[in-house]
């Protein structure tokens, strides 16, 4: 139980302009789950990329089961028994789940031909064993982020590794799926194997990890036993100061004017008769399970997806939103949950990304860009959001995941919309910075902006929302006030299944198969 499975010592790693790791160490024991925590840009992902053969260390020693090793390539690392789930997905979007899981190890007939049937059967067996509810034939690019994450997990576990590294595996998951994942991990860990688990969600770490290693600014700080460590203690080590985690929604008032009113929204794919109001200066939380349709509501609001029916009323006037540009003209903005695909210009620099949305409104005169103004604004947000970047000219691709997320948030803050839809705004953001973003959201609300906050983290919903809209299977099942909202009742309404379960339908007062008012 206590002999080290994986040891890292004295590791340095620099990128142009950035020293990502300095004299780093780490010890993973056999049969344990080791949590790795640290602020955004602390160097967690970089360390994991060294272990999995994507980058090579400038200096340092690595030992696996007592043997020195150096992973020369991803393939080499896999052969050594180190499997990694990356923070950013590494799936092949045009291939199916089965094809992705066994990529590079496809069962063959002869040397060249593939055995598609066995591939399907193997995958089905694997998914069965892991209790992952995925269709082996589904095309990965068409899955939701959460399901893609499941594919990554299945793929990593299919290698039967000794060391399993998970870099923020739950950022896209909600409570239920996190629980599934944790069960998987518990079944996986046994003498001879170990898991390195990176996450910004403290309560999760508490539940799953045996020990926790804290790093800060690329340097090792401490390793604590989970049993004896308290969350505030860990957070204090991480960010160098204490954070109040018990805060409550601010400025909750029932007497606000309705800004945006949505009536009977439905889409071909999922949404059924979704109705809700958004009030001025309000933070309206959207809770629900994966696939409940929250993202689709957000996208429908800004015209990114086609509506089948329903009306949107803004300040008493009915509006039609054909595309996000029109939405922006009405002052409605949507921050996507998938920053890589829908949020960022990965190859462009920080400044260009932050200025993108507001370019025409704020940073141009006579068709030409006023770069100084844009730079000032970008610098301001890099400061207030504490975006860790060597310069405003750094390519966004080279930022850490959490800092990329902050760039997306900065873009929307700069744009200055009246109605903001934030879809999973704190995905991959560290606890310290999260608190700062909460403050910012509260400030925006206090200025009179109206915010829809879609989140899969119940604590975040409870921490921020003036009211909570709970969704299930494309329907709004309940709208709760801040006072009445709690873990239990949100979960209850999030798991109602009126289409399958008559009792649930009766509770919601709808006839099965027909759309009705919840």
């Amino acid at each position, binding site marked *: 139980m206590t002999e080290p499975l994986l040891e890292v010592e004295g590791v340095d790693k620099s990128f142009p302009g950035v020293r990502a790791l300095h004299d780093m160490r780490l010890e993973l024991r056999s049969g344990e789950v080791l949590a790795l925590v640290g602020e955004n840009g602390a160097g967690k992902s970089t360390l994991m990329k060294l272990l999995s053969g994507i980058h090579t260390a400038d200096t340092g020693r690595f030992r696996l089961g007592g043997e020195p090793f150096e992973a020369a390539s991803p*393939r080499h690392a896999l052969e050594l028994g180190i499997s990694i789930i990356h923070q950013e997905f590494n799936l092949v*979007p045009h291939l199916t789940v089965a094809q992705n899981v066994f990529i590079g190890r496809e069962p063959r007939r002869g040397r060249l031909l*593939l055995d598609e049937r066995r591939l399907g059967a193997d995958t089905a067996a694997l998914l069965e064993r892991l209790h992952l509810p995925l269709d082996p034939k589904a095309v990965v690019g068409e899955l939701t982020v959460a399901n893609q994450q499941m594919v990554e997990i299945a793929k990593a576990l299919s290698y039967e590794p000794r060391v399993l590294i998970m870099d923020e595996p739950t950022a896209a998951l909600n409570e239920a799926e996190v*629980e599934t994942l944790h069960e998987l991990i518990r079944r996986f860990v046994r003498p001879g194997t170990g898991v390195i688990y990176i996450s910004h969600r403290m309560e999760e770490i508490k539940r799953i990890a045996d020990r926790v290693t804290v790093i800060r600014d690329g340097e090792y700080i401490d390793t604590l036993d989970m049993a004896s460590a308290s969350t505030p203690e860990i957070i204090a080590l991480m960010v160098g100061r204490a954070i109040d985690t018990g805060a409550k929604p601010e400025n909750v008032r029932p007497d606000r004017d309705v800004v945006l009113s949505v009536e009977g929204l439905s889409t071909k794919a999922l949404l059924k008769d979704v109705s809700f109001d958004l009030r001025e200066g309000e933070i309206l939380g959207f809770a629900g399970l994966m696939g409940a349709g929250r993202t689709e509501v957000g996208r429908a609001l800004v015209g990114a997806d086609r509506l089948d029916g329903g009306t949107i009323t803004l300040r008493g006037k009915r509006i039609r939103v054909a595309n996000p540009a029109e939405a922006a003209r009405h002052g409605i903005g949507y921050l996507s949950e998938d920053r890589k695909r829908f949020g960022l210009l990965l190859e462009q620099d920080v400044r260009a990304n932050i200025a993108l949305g507001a370019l025409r409104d704020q940073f141009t005169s006579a068709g030409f860009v006023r770069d100084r103004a844009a730079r000032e604004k970008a610098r301001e947000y890099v400061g207030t959001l504490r975006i860790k970047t060597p310069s405003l000219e750094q390519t966004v691709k080279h930022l850490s995941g959490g800092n990329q997320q902050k760039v997306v948030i900065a873009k929307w803050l700069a744009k200055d919309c009246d109605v903001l839809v934030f879809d999973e705004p704190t995905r991959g953001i560290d606890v310290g910075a999260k608190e700062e973003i909460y403050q910012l959201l509260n400030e925006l609300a206090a200025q009179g902006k109206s915010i829809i906050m879609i989140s899969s983290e119940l604590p975040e919903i409870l921490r921020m929302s003036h009211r909570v809209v709970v969704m299930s299977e494309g329907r709004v099942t309940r709208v709760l006030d801040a006072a009445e909202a709690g873990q239990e009742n949100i979960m209850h309404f999030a798991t109602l299944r009126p289409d399958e379960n008559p009792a649930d339908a009766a509770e919601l007062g709808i006839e099965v198969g027909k759309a009705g008012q919840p």
Partner: protein
Amino acid sequence: MTAVKAPARDRAQASGGIAAAVKGRLQQLLAFASLIVIYAFFSFASPFFFSYGNFTAILFSTVVIGTLAIGTTFVIIAGGIDLSIGTGMALCAVMSGVFLVKLGLPLWLGVPAAILFGGVMGLVNGINVALLKIPPFIATLAMMLVAEGLALVLSDSTPIYFNDVPGYTDISTGNLIPGVNFPNAVLVLLAIALIAGVLLTKSVLGRYTYSIGSNEEATSLSGIDVRKWKIAIYAFAGLFIGLAGVMISARLGSAQPATGMGYELQAIAAVVIGGTSLSGGKGSIVGTLIGALIISVLNNGLQIMSIPQEWQNVILGCVILVAVYTDRIRKKETT
């Protein structure tokens, strides 16, 4: 939680499976739609269009572009492009002449050698792209120029005639099926389309072709030697350049060193009209064949209708636009 959800999802999966299968079948049929509409139109518009002779003429005229397009389909699905196929074909034709006429190799040796020569050209392209990391457009553009020059140099800028190579022209113009007037060239095209189709969908090479085109980095991180496979893909596509060189010289009875320029654009057009995406990850051999046929049928039909030639291009352009547009709409509706 998972247990509660499972049944509903499974049902969705099952019905999705059947629906998907039906949809897939339907789409395969509908993919022919534009082609069939065009074919039907010409059949009504001209009394000379709809005949067995003209049918084989259309197929015959598709052989060279079709062969090039099939090879290029692999390269394009893998996210690359190959501009060297046109002049490369001319070079391979010349090499076929060098092997069979100048060196006097027997047919069974010279023809495979010429095809392999195409493979070597592809190999060089692949090395330039995968190892030297030169953008495919540039690497194959350079090869296009080199091949154009070498074809002239090696042939002394004169056509090489295959008169003294018995059986060579039969590769293209002979009739393998006795008694039926059906040129071998078309049989060759169908055979390689079949082989290429199987390799693309059922072989490791095909799988990695899609995978690299869809997400090269993820493929590499999954432990696949992307460089090796890229080289393999270009080299494989090169074999089709070689074969196209053999087919065109067998049809003409001579290797024409100065031909080929512009064929690459036609072949790429056939691939793209066939639904393969130039950004990689998507495409099929059937689609490419249909794309190549749409172009041939249009060319043939407009000529048969005696449309003045300067108008033929105008109409060709418009019909391609309409065909691709309706195809896009149709796909969107069935999906």
